Every structure is written in structure tokens, then in C-alpha cells.
């Protein structure tokens, strides 16, 4: 892999995208071949689910490519839009009242753009405290002006939580992109790709392990598939993928494995928390509730990233003292 490490940035990126799109094309071709066979209903349903997932991955990969081509501004914008759509979905499924209108406006049209501008402008100090400190204080004040004491704490807490996950968590992805590490200039996009790759690997690893292992769920009321064993397997899968990608990162090989494992493990915990939230809101899939959320179901897919990004971001900074 030393040869790979010596390539310049553009070559490495080109290689990554060729590998990514090549893999996707291969998977799609195999899937197409399999759909041509005669099958029963259960198999067809599984294929249909796979088709949806595959399409989501394609869309994700293309978006990444567009973001890379359009540079830092494009990438920041892309994650801002993702964050907007995720927050929209979260708020739809949360109980808010009329008096929250102004706080919600503030969240969507004030805090969200500002947080991403801070990420894009690399004002890291303000970026890190803006939501946990200032927004935390501002939202309840604006809500209180709404003059409605009913379930006040609950409503405010929910809005704050949504902002934390959908905006704060997500904004760490573009921040990662722009993070300046010693001898790793202008390669932040790799870190984002690396993060997405390991989180996806963890997710796939955990899901397939859970389907085969049938081990005891940790919290059966929240998720029947989440078990410590499946979780560890997911983390190991993330570590392996992280290790394979080490040539594109600033890490040493063992660091790449460790970082991948940490990010993957956090992502899976994020997914687990989202499942608890879904159960609370009474939906099985965010996107499955066609009536309100439509076919998007984006929150489901980005939640692991929202949880993994801040942890990964701080791990990288801590490792490099950046």
C-alpha cells in the first residue's frame, strides 16, 4: 500500500471513486442478474428492499462525487441540505405546539445555516460551543415568549435534541472536510469518505451478523436485533474497512483500524438510539410512515453518521493535537 500512499491527491481521489463506482456497478449487475430468475414472494420482497437500499447508496455515492467536484463550499452545502431534510423529518414526528413556531423557525432558518457557515469558515471554537451553549439558552427563551406553559420542558427538550443530532452532529462532517492536519493538507474529503465508509461497513456487518447469530438482544423492547455480539462484529468490520483505506488517511495502519472501529461503534449506537425514538413515536421505519414523511426515510440513514461524526472529529483532533 506504500505505492498508493505516494500518489498525489487527485490520483488517490480518482482511484477511490473508480473503486467505489466499480463496486456499485458490480453489485448492481449481480442484483440485476438475480432478479431475472423466477422467485417466490418472500424473495421478491427481499429484492425490492435491496433495490431501495441500493438506490440510496447510488444516490449517496453520486452526491459525494458532486460534493467533491464542487469543493468545500459544495460539500458544506450538501451536508447542510441533508441536515435540513433530517431535521424536517424529526420535527414532523415530534409533538410540538403552536407556541413553538418561532423556535422552530429559529432552528431551521437561523441556527442551521449559521452552524454550517461556522463549519465552512473553520471558526472551530465558536462552531463547537454555538449549539450546546448559545442555542441551548436561546431556544427555551424564544419558546417561552410563545406564552404556552403546557409540556414546556418536554417540547423544548425535544427541539433541542433534534438540533443537537440533526444539525450539530451532521455539521461535523463538513468540519472534518476542512480540518487542517499536519502534512495532510486539502485531503479532508478522504476523512469524510473514510467516515461514511466505516459507518456503512459497521451497519452492514451488524445487520448481517444479527440475522445469522440470533443472540440475545440487549434491550428487546427497543431493538430485537441489537446484541453486543452483533455490535462487536460490526465494529470489527468497520475497523477492517478502515484499515483497508489507511493509505488515503493521515493515520498509521493500526490507528486507521482503531479509528474505524470507534466511528463504526458510535454509528451503530446512534442507530440503536434512533430505534428507541422510532418506537416512542410509534413508527417502525421513519420512511415507512408514508402518510407524513413520504418515501424519504432519510433520518434513518443519516442518524449513524450524526452520532459517529462528532466522536470521530474529536478523536482525530485529539490524536493530532490540531
Amino acid at each position, binding site marked *: 500500500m506504500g505505492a498508493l500512499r505516494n500518489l498525489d491527491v487527485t490520483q488517490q481521489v480518482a482511484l477511490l471513486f473508480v473503486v467505489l463506482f466499480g463496486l456499485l456497478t458490480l453489485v448492481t449487475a449481480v442484483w440485476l442478474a438475480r432478479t431475472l430468475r423466477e422467485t417466490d414472494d418472500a424473495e421478491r420482497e427481499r429484492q425490492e428492499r435491496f433495490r431501495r437500499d441500493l438506490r440510496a447508496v447510488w444516490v449517496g455515492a453520486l452526491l459525494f462525487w458532486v460534493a467533491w467536484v464542487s469543493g468545500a463550499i459544495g460539500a458544506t452545502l450538501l451536508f447542510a441540505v441533508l441536515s435540513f431534510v433530517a431535521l424536517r423529518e424529526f420535527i414532523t414526528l415530534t409533538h410540538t405546539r403552536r407556541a413553538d413556531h418561532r423556535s422552530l423557525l429559529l432552528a431551521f432558518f437561523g441556527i442551521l445555516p449559521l452552524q454550517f457557515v461556522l463549519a465552512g469558515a473553520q471558526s472551530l471554537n465558536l462552531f463547537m460551543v454555538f449549539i450546546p451553549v448559545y442555542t441551548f439558552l436561546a431556544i427555551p427563551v424564544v419558546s417561552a415568549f410563545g406564552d404556552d406553559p403546557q409540556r414546556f420542558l418536554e417540547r423544548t427538550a425535544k427541539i433541542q435534541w433534534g438540533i443537537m443530532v440533526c444539525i450539530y452532529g451532521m455539521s461535523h462532517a463538513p468540519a472534518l472536510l476542512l480540518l487542517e492536519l499536519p502534512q495532510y493538507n486539502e485531503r479532508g474529503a478522504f476523512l469524510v469518505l473514510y467516515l461514511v465508509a466505516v459507518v456503512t461497513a459497521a451497519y452492514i456487518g451488524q445487520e448481517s451478523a444479527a440475522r445469522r447469530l440470533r443472540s440475545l438482544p440487549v434491550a428487546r423492547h427497543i431493538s430485537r436485533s441489537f446484541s453486543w455480539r452483533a455490535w462487536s462484529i460490526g465494529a470489527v468490520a468497520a475497523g477492517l474497512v478502515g484499515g483497508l483505506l489507511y493509505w488515503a488517511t493521515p493515520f498509521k495502519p493500526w490507528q486507521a483500524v482503531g479509528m474505524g472501529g470507534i466511528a463504526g461503534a458510535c454509528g451503530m449506537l446512534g442507530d440503536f438510539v434512533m430505534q428507541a425514538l422510532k418506537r416512542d413515536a410509534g413508527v417502525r421505519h421513519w420512511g415507512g410512515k408514508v*402518510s*407524513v414523511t413520504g*418515501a424519504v426515510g432519510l433520518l434513518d440513514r443519516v442518524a449513524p453518521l450524526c452520532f459517529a461524526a462528532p466522536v470521530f472529529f474529536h478523536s482525530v483532533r485529539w490524536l493530532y493535537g490540531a
Partner: protein
Amino acid sequence: MNLAAAAGLFLAGLTRLITGAQGHWYGCPPKAEQRVYFANHQSHFDWVLIWAALPSDLRARTRPIAARDYWTASAFKQWLTTEVFNAVYVSRVRSADEDPLEPLAEALENGDSLVIFPEGTRSNKGEPQAFKSGLYHLAQRFPEVQLIPAWIDNVQRVMPKGEVVPVPILCSVTFGAPLQLESGEDKDAFLVRAREAVIALRQVAD
């Protein structure tokens, strides 16, 4: 493309960004037939939402109803309702010798589709109020036009009364099966049935 068409596309895009504007066609397909859509009314946003949920080829021939005194009061309002939405104007003050439904009948005779809110006014109590009789008279005069019930979900959260800026929250419009006026069915029975057809779609939406 002229300015009005561009403004229409922009508005539809904006509505989709803010509300998702999901159209769910349960009882009928989105076809270019002549139709009267009737829906529950909770917000000023209702019309734009239905309009954005329609496929673009249906939008051009589907018209809202606008109160003449309010929507022609300024040049911008007039431009918006005439050029962008192609609204049918009705007057709210009823003069003795004028049938208030006449402009609607004229539009239907021209082959256009309409969107009406038979409650007459916005309600925010959840249950729609009793329907006004206009729907019945239209059904009587135009038996060949399909009457499509529609349920608009969640929109009151987007823009509550008194607010001007909409909050991004996902909404949906559920379109039901066409309704017909039975032979010999009297006005009240039909209006109750029409209202129930709209409410029944809420269960489908949930």
C-alpha cells in the same frame, strides 16, 4: 418560459422543500380528467399544497377559488392569482340577482378543474365543519365532472393562524375515490356524505 410560469415552478419547488408536498392517490390515479377536488381547510397554505402535490401537467388546468375583494386589492395579489394560479374570482358580498356559483360554473364549462374548500372558512379544531351547499349544486349541474375528496394532513403545523413564515414540516395530501350524487339524494344527505368521505381519508393517511 414567462415570469408567471417561472414563479409557479419556484413556488411549487419551495412548497416541496418546506412540506414535501406528498400526494397520495388512494381512490383515483392522477389523470388529466375534469375534476372538482374538495378538501378540509386549515390554513392559507392549503391551496398551494394541493397544487404542488399535483403532477405538473394537471397544475395548468386546475384552478383555485379566490375572493375578489381581497385578491385583487393590490397589483401583486392580482398578478399572483391571475397569472400564476389562474384563479376563479368570486365575490363574497352577495347581490340579489347574482348566483355566487356562476364563475365556478363558467370555469367548469370551459373544461377546467377546480379545488374548493366546502367548509367556507378555515377550521383548526381538527374535525372539519359542516359543508356549504355549493358542492351539491355543482354536483347537480355537472354530473360528468368527477368529485374527488382530499385530506390535507399536518398543514396547520406549518403555518398556524397569525404567522407568516412557514416552518418546514412534512405534509401530505390524500386523494380519495370519486364521489357521485345519487339519484334522488337530498342536499343535506349528500353534504354529510361528502364530509365523511373527506374525514375517512384521515384514517388512510395515519
